């Protein structure tokens, strides 16, 4: 969509906290998996309608400023609602076990996360490439006026896309909740990593985001295992190296 949203990490954080509340109230992880993305999609859609809509003309800088403001607001709201302490939830009982595979042991939950990631990635890629909505979005980003002239209601498409993106971030938050700790600063760390992934892969490219995530994820895990001191430096060094060679990322055009 060609929008720079620093509050995307906040959507992830709110997703995780929503999961925490839902699990606390109903003891059902699956319900949280349903509710959080819907809630975040609603929040994202509203934000787009009320705020972002006015800013597409003003370029990336205004978006940085606006969303930077939102990250502050969201963190403070979460902190006032839940306090600064770290929370955690358990994975659902049906995924609490372990699986033996090829002589190694995996937790069922990790495999579940892997499965969700593969399915979401495949669906996104298919929608982007094959479906009408993907074509409409690509057209809208490439040339807004032309797409509008062709009778596409871009305003609606953008609102729905933004809502969908926010919902996905919420989904990621729910899935991450049993694996990682839930705390008010979790938005910043995931935001920076997500930006690195997207830029490394190339903006406006789902393939790039998937490959970028794999590279950064592997790099980060290998980095923390072998050189725990400099893992983050390694990640950013990797991104810098790629961008220096290919200034628009691995799969980026332009």
């Amino acid at each position, binding site marked *: 969509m060609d929008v720079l949203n620093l509050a995307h990490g906040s959507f992830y954080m709110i997703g995780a906290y929503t999961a925490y509340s839902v699990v606390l109230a109903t003891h059902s992880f699956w319900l949280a998996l349903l509710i959080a993305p819907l809630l975040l999609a609603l929040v994202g859609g509203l934000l787009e309608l009320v705020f972002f809509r006015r800013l597409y003309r003003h370029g990336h800088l205004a978006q*940085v*400023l606006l969303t*930077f403001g939102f990250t*502050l607001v969201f963190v403070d709201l979460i902190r006032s609602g839940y306090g600064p302490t770290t929370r955690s939830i358990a994975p659902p009982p049906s995924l609490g076990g372990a699986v033996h595979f090829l002589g190694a042991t995996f937790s069922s939950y990790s495999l579940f996360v892997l499965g969700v990631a593969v399915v979401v990635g495949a669906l996104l890629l298919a929608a982007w490439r094959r479906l009408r909505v993907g074509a409409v979005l690509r057209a809208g980003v490439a040339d807004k006026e032309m797409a509008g002239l062709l009778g596409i209601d871009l305003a609606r498409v953008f609102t729905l896309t933004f809502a969908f993106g926010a919902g996905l971030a919420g989904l990621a938050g729910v899935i991450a909740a049993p694996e990682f700790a839930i705390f008010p600063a979790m938005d*910043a760390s995931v935001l920076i990593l997500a930006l690195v992934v997207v830029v490394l892969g190339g903006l406006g490219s789902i393939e790039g985001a998937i490959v970028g995530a794999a590279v950064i994820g592997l790099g980060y895990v290998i980095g923390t295992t072998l050189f725990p001191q400099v893992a983050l*430096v390694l990640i*950013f060094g990797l991104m810098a190296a790629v961008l220096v060679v290919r200034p628009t990322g691995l799969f980026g055009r332009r």
Partner: protein
Amino acid sequence: MTVGRGRTLLLLALLVALASLPLWAPRFWIYIGTQALIFAIFAMSLDLLLGYAGLASFGHAAFYGVGAYACGLLALRHVDALIPLLLIGALASAAVAVPIGALSLRATGIYFLMLTLAFAQILWGLAVNWTSLTRGTDGLIGVPRPALPGAGALGFTLNERGPFFILCLAVAVLVFLLLEALTRSPFGRTLEGIRENERRMRALGFPTFRYRLAVFVVGGAIAGLAGSLAAMSNGFATPDLLYWTVSGLVLVAVVVGGSRSLVGPVLGAFLVLIAQLGLSTFVDRWELVLGALFIAFVLFLPRGLVGLVRRA
């Protein structure tokens, strides 16, 4: 002509008001004023890049932090002279800005933004992990303020709030005049030409990359100068100074004030700092208020405070 004179008069009035601050303001507000002046120098250096050269750097905190660390390291090794301590911050940051600029400037727009962010985060990682030099997350603590030659005879030292505030004010004024001259010089005009149409400027024979790199290094050096003052003012240099939220905050200060004006970023820096330090002292949910303030600015005043006066 009258607009120019009005601006000068306004600036002089502001200067007099600020200079008299130590005489009447409570200690707490002198402290906030000092922090705001340092932040204003930092914001002006970013305005040089953002407003005049059109370079949206999201990693400007790197140079602020490097300056603070350079000054802190030297001061802790018993260097007790003001000018060398200020200069080392600027020089260290300029030295770091050369390779970062040379690599980042290969990209443009949002990729430039992300590259500068990446390099700033690398330096932040170094500040956290290179414990033998930087002492890790604790940072350099107990950085002393230097003595001012001749000040002892007059009965004051930089350890008092008033004189240190005046020092920061003097540096801020010097930086303002320097940048004002720079942006009006042929060098500044060339930069604006490159911002508007780089291809044409290159066709006219200007080595555009070298111009952009030069301004990136100058901006970095001035941010380092601000970092030096910050290390003296706070008495410490910690990795927080290099964190990406600091880059975000200074970018907000420039945009809220209104870029390409030098005055705007100063106003923006004061607003942001007073909002941050003032609100955090008196209001519990200050981040919420600050965030809401930024949002309101983008929506209702997209050209910043300066946009209120300047209708161009």
